[in-house]
């Protein structure tokens, strides 16, 4: 069971309080009704499933109930960092080169 740092509760909490919610930073187009089939396919169906660093959405469903974002290593399972929903992808990751 992992420990996950909830950016709203400001502490690490046990994984069973959380639920994964898929890939992060896929914004719903504001003009969604008029986008092309190809754009809709890209938005809704296509996911990278990267080996290595992934950007994910998690929900502290049995805690503060907030959705937030996480950077995680899909090989080691380790969380690199978490940040609030709506915040941009972090430019620099902790532990990354100077």
């Amino acid at each position, binding site marked *: 069971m992992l420990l996950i740092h909830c950016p709203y509760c400001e502490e690490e909490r046990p994984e*069973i309080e959380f639920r994964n919610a898929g890939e992060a930073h896929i914004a719903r187009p504001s003009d969604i009704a008029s986008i092309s089939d190809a754009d809709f396919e890209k938005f809704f169906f296509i996911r990278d499933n990267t080996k290595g660093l992934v950007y994910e959405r998690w929900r502290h469903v049995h*805690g*503060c109930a907030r959705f937030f974002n996480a950077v995680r290593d899909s090989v080691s399972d380790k969380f690199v960092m978490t940040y609030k929903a709506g915040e941009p992808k972090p430019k620099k990751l902790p532990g990354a080169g100077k």
Partner: protein
Amino acid sequence: MAKAAVKKPASAPATALVECRPALAGREASGSNVKVSVLPPAERISLRAPEASVAALSRALGVTLPQKPKTSASKNGRTVLWLGPDEWFVIDEAGGNPLDDCTNAKALHSAVGVSHRNVAFAVSGAGAQATVSAGCPQDLSLDAFPVGACSRTVLGKSEILLYRPAADAFRVECWRSFSDYVFTFLTEAARDAAA
């Protein structure tokens, strides 16, 4: 069970022509160093509001809404638990009506009455922490979860609200239909709380 001492909650209107039947009313169980009891009905609201409304709502409720994660505030029989950055849980055990109080606040907010949604348990005694730790994965030591701390979390396979009114006491709340499970779980755990 202190039947006589309990004030009638506001949701039990004087006009009620039928019986109020709270779940598990009066049930309790003991381990060698812990007691688990079902608490009497209380008034409860789920309060949601942006930061800008906090002051007005605090005035309306007569309790300052806590803004630090995992903290609570309590005054005159009314306890406000921080559950999320824009979410509080208000428990009134003094016969007040927090829902009405919020209606008077003009600031932007959402107040929803959930008095009957939850059932509350008191877990008290030297074995209280061990009892809750049988099913709750959080660190409940006094350093990590001090008196006054509160959190939504899990107990076994049920979601609960956990609040620590005293060093050796917890208040556990769950949804009504989970109350049988949670009470049974706490009862079982209490048997092992001496370890």
